[in-house]
């Protein structure tokens, strides 16, 4: 800024207008999803029936609800965590109007890289004696780094080659999985240091007689909260929405469009790396088959969570809730003893239904807005006359 400018339009001073900012703050956007979630939980609790459970120590038999019992809920939460974390990353990409089909493959490649490293320094590996104090952090870095690097490559392809993200990530989806396959020679890797599995990711906590694993859950919550906060309060977060809403206008407003796109694809890869790390720690093994078809579950979670594929809309919390809804339906199919063969049909129908409900909800909100505007206008005219 030069000092000689006499322009009177300074931003730093001036009264703050309440009339402009105070009215009609957007409501809690995910309220609809939360409602669906509660309704689902309610239905499963009522219709799921109960189960007789023998206490391991005393031998006494207690009746517990099939859905609403500690280990079922714990299992549900754990299953959700992988998808929710990746769905948060996918939401970022989808908000910019892009798509990432390679998350499942990145997840696999990151897991395989981490697994090979952990196996090498694990109890049965060639370098069994290594100190876990550096092996575990390095393994985590490998998982996250591989994920981020693969995502960055996607971003470079989208930005640099100017090819539609669908095509780029369709290609890398095959490439990354192929690399994982070649690296592992189609073998599965196990035998990780216990400090990484039971000591960290699979660290159990006893609660009402069931073993719960809070670490995946905590990571999921952390990723969601951070990403949600970032989308809302960081400059880059705002820019992500702007690029998805109107890329050309963003470019004409001087936004670093390419850098923003690189960031969202890298972040999507990063979340796949995080999910891979959790998977390694929880299951203690990985092969080049890991995460096959996950990309569609992840995109489904993001879309159920309110992200629109044309871009400009989506939230991190929505992605989490979307993933949770899909997992709850999976869970419900088991609990209600529905034939497993029907599960895909049900899930597919629910995805379409959820998006439809979201749109109906949006239309209703628009109608309300229109009516509110009309009343406001009429009052203004009355005051004027």
């Amino acid at each position, binding site marked *: 800024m030069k000092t000689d400018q006499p322009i009177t339009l300074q931003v730093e001073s001036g009264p703050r207008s309440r009339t*402009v900012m105070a009215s009609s703050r957007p409501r809690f956007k995910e309220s609809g999803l939360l409602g669906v979630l509660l309704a689902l939980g309610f239905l499963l609790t009522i219709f799921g029936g109960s189960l007789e459970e023998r206490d391991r120590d005393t031998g006494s038999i207690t009746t517990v609800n099939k859905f609403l019992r500690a280990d079922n809920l714990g299992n549900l939460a754990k299953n959700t965590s992988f998808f929710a974390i990746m769905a948060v990353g996918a939401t970022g990409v989808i908000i910019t109007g892009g798509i990432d089909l390679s998350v499942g493959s990145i997840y696999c490649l990151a897991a395989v890289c981490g697994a090979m490293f952990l196996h090498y320094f694990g109890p049965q590996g060639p370098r069994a004696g290594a100190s876990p104090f550096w092996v575990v952090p390095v393994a985590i870095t490998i998982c996250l780094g591989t994920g981020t690097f693969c995502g960055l490559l996607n971003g470079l392809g989208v930005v640099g080659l100017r090819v539609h993200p669908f095509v780029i990530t369709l290609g890398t989806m095959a490439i990354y999985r192929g690399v994982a396959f070649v690296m592992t020679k189609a073998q599965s890797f196990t035998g990780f240091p216990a400090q990484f599995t039971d000591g960290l990711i699979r660290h159990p906590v006893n609660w009402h007689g069931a073993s719960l694993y809070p670490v995946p859950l905590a990571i999921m919550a952390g990723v969601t909260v951070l990403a949600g906060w970032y989308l809302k309060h960081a*400059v880059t977060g705002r820019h992500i929405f702007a690029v998805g*809403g109107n890329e050309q206008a963003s470019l*004409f407003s001087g936004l670093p469009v390419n850098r923003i796109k690189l960031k969202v694809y890298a972040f999507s890869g990063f979340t796949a790396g995080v999910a891979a790390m959790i998977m390694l720690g929880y299951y203690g093994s990985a092969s080049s088959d890991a995460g096959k078809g996950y990309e569609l579950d992840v995109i489904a979670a993001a879309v159920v969570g309110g992200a629109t594929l044309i871009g*400009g809309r989506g939230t991190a919390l929505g992605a989490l809730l979307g993933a949770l809804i899909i997992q709850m339906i999976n869970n419900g199919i088991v609990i209600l003893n529905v034939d497993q063969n029907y599960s895909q049909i049900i899930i597919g129908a629910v995805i379409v239904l959820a998006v439809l409900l979201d749109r109906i909800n949006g239309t209703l909100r*628009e109608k309300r807005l229109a009516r509110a505007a009309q009343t406001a*206008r009429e009052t203004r005219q009355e005051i004027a006359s």
Partner: protein
Amino acid sequence: MSTEASIPAISFRGITKRFPGTVALQEVSFDVRPGACHALMGENGAGKSTLGKILAGIHQPDEGHFEIDGVVRRFRSPLEARRAGIGIVHQELSFCPNLSVAENICLSHLPNRAGRLDWQRLHLKAQACLDEIGAECDLREELGRLSAGQTQMVQIAATLAIGARIFIMDEPTSSLSAAESQRLEILIGQLRRRGATILYVSHRMDEIFRFCDTVTVLRDSRHVATMPLAGTDESELVRMMIGRTWQKLYPEHVERAPGPERLRVEELSSPGKFRQVSFSLCSGEVLGFAGLVGSGRSEIAMGIFGLDSGLTGRVFVDGQSVAVRSPGEAMAQGIGFVTEDRKRQGLVLGMECGENITLASMDRLNWRGIIRGADERNAISIFWEKLQVKAASAQVPAQTLSGGNQQKLVLAKWLARQCRILILDEPTRGVDVGAKAEIHRLIDELAAAGLAILLISSELPEVLNLSTRLIVMRNGRVAGMLNRAEATQERVMQLMAGCNLTGL
């Protein structure tokens, strides 16, 4: 109410239409005589286009209904309206740019034999429609390759192809040349002689009086009056449209001594766009750019703003030579650019109005990458009030605002950025009379406050009244540079069109 004994061709009965955040139409009722050319006037956002779209089946009314030839009709889709003989010509409703001209003309009922496209009949039919309006274009050309004017002619031809009896023309001449506009006038006469009824939406007063016989004025989404044009004049219409007495469209010109030089370009060229353009722009000055569409005015603006990779020549800001390769670099030099097409290049329509205002100034409103919420709200409310944006609140999506208010948002975006050189490309295109006057006053105020303004406009009165100096472009070259005193409408038009101009 119609005074004729005959049944009205169209009669609207209490039409109400709501959109998110706004009411587009409120209990609008009036009749259109058969065979009339009925003008529909009103400020932007008054609901003219919405009414046309309801008639064409694109929107459905929330309340009320309309009758065609005395029969209540309700169209659920544009196709149903087409089948009922209603054709619409609208700038934004373009056809399929990837298909040929002929296919576009006959799109709703392609001639076929058992599902196989009959190219011969298709071309004959399309050619007949084009001949009827006296338009010349290659039937096999892809529509997307035509100019805006030609596309519009193709649209008109397509309404003929469906055998329409009722034509809705929504600003059909906004991208037509003077000659094409004259051809349209003849065409409208022909259509009326064949018994067609025309609903004509336009901002251009001279056209309304030339083409039409009856006028309906809408204001604030309500019906104000329907009357024969013979008994009225321009000022009365304007008064009805804006609902208050006619105020000056242009601010009084005050002679100001120009400040220090802000921007100088020397021998700016870009292959195929413009050649050897040199000028300088001082603080407090409004440098007008006149010229026909395609004369290279907008391209120069793009070049200065870093959006032209083929640019050669030198650009100086505050006397320092600068290389601007991206909008970001241009903004770092204090340059702002209000683009021609606000919907595509100016605003993120799905985002809140406030977020649009601060979109370009995030680098000042953050602390280590985190938006400073209080500062942002403060900035928004300052410019919201300064520009008097009319909307429910700064948190409604930008797409719910009318054209004039959207344009104010774009201006606010660059003012919030505190740029020192502001390029305005058609700042009042598609903006209603009231907002236009406000924007003109604002341009003058900003220049008085020391901004250097480069004003590109196709509206001659606008450049003539607001500019301190004027550059006229022709075929990518500077055809002349005029001082305010020398710049008359005739002189500028001569320069714009070349010397062989006779009477326009």
